[in-house]
């Protein structure tokens, strides 16, 4: 236990200086360096958070995602490029390998430039669908910025997102004022498949739709998607917790939309508002690059919880129907430090005690006695099932936007030893049988005494016998 603690302190000290929970080497793919100027505030924010940004053109010769089998970068961000393909160093295969090696990717699209083939294939691999022929523009005639797009309606103004479900933590919209709006200029909307790994971060309003400005300028006959089916910013988290974010509009990350003045076209009257883009861009990039929503297991402990027993930590074997206590300590990384992890309102951290299938699935409750400033402990007490075998204490905590936790601790559960059952004299049903034993013993002793020491009665029989 003590060594665990010191290891944990050491880890904590090592991580306190890092910025992202998983490294700070960021690769930005841009057509040319001059274009970087448009995103200077966004890049400035990233640099101030400690990222080392290397800018590369997509077809650059020197670009390599892997060096000697190890990732050369921790995160990649793609900005729209004019090229149709991204060259041999950024094939979809390599990008999938990069994610398999726990690298994170953020892709920003634009409706002005068609999406490169490589990225379309990667998106298809992740079950994200883009409009046909890689060109689409999202417009909304009801929620647009009346000052910059009074006629074309292609700058959408969206309310900052709220929590996806009551049991999911809201990482992206918290703290936004009621008048704040996210500007989504000239962007592409995507349709998400039904995979559990995909989560929409920002959905289009009910009245928005996507159309092809080249072919459907007059009327929309064939609809790609409309309303809330259109996901403007989408998140994907792989099973290995590698993160992927698709931002439909790269322009929303540009300087001119950070803290810009926009006017909502609400029912004729104009209402000025400030954009929430800077904070939103910080949160989206922070989530993608493992600065928020990263969970860590500090330690796991389970022990026999019975009066009079030794109750040592993490034994390998228990008996059926033992009372056992299980405790797990979790931390959540938020921007600069590991904090105690608190469950969102309706959610539950669940412990499964399983052999093939769970026998118990119990909620773990916050255990303040074992929590600290940087970790919170959750514990549950349970009575082991009356089935012997090899069991797992399993915590499988997978939630949208939080990195995946899958912890298994294997223990044997033995059956009752013969001397652990209640004695027969305690069982009332056994009393007649015990009485029978006693009677037999006493009767046998009496018979022995009688057989050996009884004098004959009558005494006249010996004449018969000696004949």
């Amino acid at each position, binding site marked *: 236990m003590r060594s665990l603690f010191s290891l944990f302190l050491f880890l904590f000290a090592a991580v306190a200086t890092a910025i992202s929970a998983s490294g700070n080497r960021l690769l930005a793919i841009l057509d040319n360096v001059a274009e970087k100027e448009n995103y200077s505030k966004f890049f400035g924010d990233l640099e101030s958070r400690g990222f080392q940004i290397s800018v590369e053109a997509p077809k650059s010769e020197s670009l390599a995602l892997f060096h000697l089998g190890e990732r050369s970068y921790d995160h990649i961000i793609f900005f729209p490029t004019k090229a149709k393909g991204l060259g041999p160093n950024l094939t979809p295969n390599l990008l999938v390998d990069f994610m398999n090696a726990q690298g994170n990717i953020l892709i920003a699209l634009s409706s002005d430039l068609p999406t490169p083939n490589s990225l379309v294939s990667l998106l298809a691999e992740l079950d994200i669908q883009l409009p046909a022929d890689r060109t689409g523009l999202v417009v909304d005639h009801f929620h647009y910025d009346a000052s910059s797009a009074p006629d074309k309606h292609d700058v959408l103004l969206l309310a900052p997102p709220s929590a996806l479900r009551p049991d999911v933590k809201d990482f992206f919209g918290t703290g936004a004022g009621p008048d704040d709006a996210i500007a989504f200029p000239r962007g592409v909307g995507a349709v998400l498949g039904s995979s559990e790994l995909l989560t929409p971060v920002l959905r289009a309003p009910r009245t928005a739709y996507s159309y092809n400005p080249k072919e459907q300028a007059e009327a929309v006959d064939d609809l790609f998607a409309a309303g809330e089916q259109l996901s403007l910013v989408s998140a994907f988290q792989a099973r290995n917790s590698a993160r992927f974010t698709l931002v439909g509009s790269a322009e929303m990350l540009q300087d001119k939309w950070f803290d810009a003045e926009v006017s909502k076209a609400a029912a004729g009257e104009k209402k000025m508002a400030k954009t929430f883009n800077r904070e939103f861009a910080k949160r989206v990039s922070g989530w993608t690059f493992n600065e928020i929503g990263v969970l860590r297991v500090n330690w796991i402990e389970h022990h026999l919880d019975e009066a009079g027993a030794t109750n040592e930590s993490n034994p390998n074997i228990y008996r059926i129907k033992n009372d056992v206590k299980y405790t797990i300590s979790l931390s959540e990384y938020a921007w600069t430090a590991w904090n105690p992890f608190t469950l969102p309102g309706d959610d539950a951290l669940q412990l499964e005690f399983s052999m093939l299938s769970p026998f*118990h699935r119990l909620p773990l409750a916050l255990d303040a006695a074992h929590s600290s400033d940087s970790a919170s402990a959750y514990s549950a007490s349970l009575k082991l*099932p009356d089935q012997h075998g090899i069991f797992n204490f399993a915590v499988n905590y997978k939630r949208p936007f939080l990195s995946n936790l899958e912890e298994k601790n294997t223990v044997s559960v033995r059956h009752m030893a013969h001397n652990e059952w209640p004695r027969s004299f305690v069982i009332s049903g056994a*009393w*007649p049988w015990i009485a029978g034993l*006693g*009677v037999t013993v006493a009767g*046998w002793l009496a018979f022995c005494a009688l057989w050996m020491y009884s004098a*004959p009665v009558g005494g006249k029989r010996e004449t018969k016998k000696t004949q």
Partner: protein
Amino acid sequence: MRISQCIAPALLLLAAGAAQAASAWGFDDGSISVVAKKSAETVKEKLNQKAPLSKPVSLGNTDTLKLSLTAKDNGKGKRPHQAFLVIQEQDSGLEAPFPLTVKETGKAAVQISHKDLPIQLLLSAKPLKAFVVLASFGSAQGLSTPVFEVKIETDANAPPPAYEEPLRYGKKPEIQHVFRADAKSPPKVISLFFALAVLATLPALLIGWIYLGGNVNHLSKAIGPAPLSHATFFGSIVAMEFVFFMYYTSWNLFQTLPVIAVISAATVLSGTKALGEVQSRRLAGER
């Protein structure tokens, strides 16, 4: 394109002065009809953009719902860019948009039947809400208004469409292990009664023996010639029962066996003499 971009703001300025608030999309001549494939009977209803139909329209599995209307911008027939019929499930808010085919004059129509609707909407228990959305570029105010409700009639003979909800990460239902029931004993009174009944057989046996003339009168006669062996022999029988008692209460097998070995040796050694004495009494005719 460039020219139109320059002209548009100018036009807008003009329009703004003339009718900024009044410019809005609307529709006229709206109607829906439900055409049944088999019976060819048609239900037709007029639509009003101000108020939705009071009764839901029912749509059977072979029926086709036709909606037609004339889109108007400020009273003039015109083609809007966005002309959708949006069908919404009331509980989840899930929506399916159907674009209308619109002519230059603003005449628009759309047909939907069961196969066009997503399965989640088909399975809805409540009537579906239908909205008409008309809007376009420029300053004209768009229209998004509920116009009618559709009740989905499924075929009672056909199996309902199967729909499996996709997996979503979240908490799972709690499981409490159901333990097997403990072994049960009969009521204590009954056990006690039979235990006493069993115990009562011992006095009955002894009384029976005494009645038949059983006695221990030869004890002194037996002890006389072989005092040590008789005491040891009978003592070893009692001790053996005591060992069995200790084995039942606390000893294990490895504590029991050596003691049994010792006692049985004593039994054999003393038994030959003691039983020899008993035999001598029998031969003497005293038994």
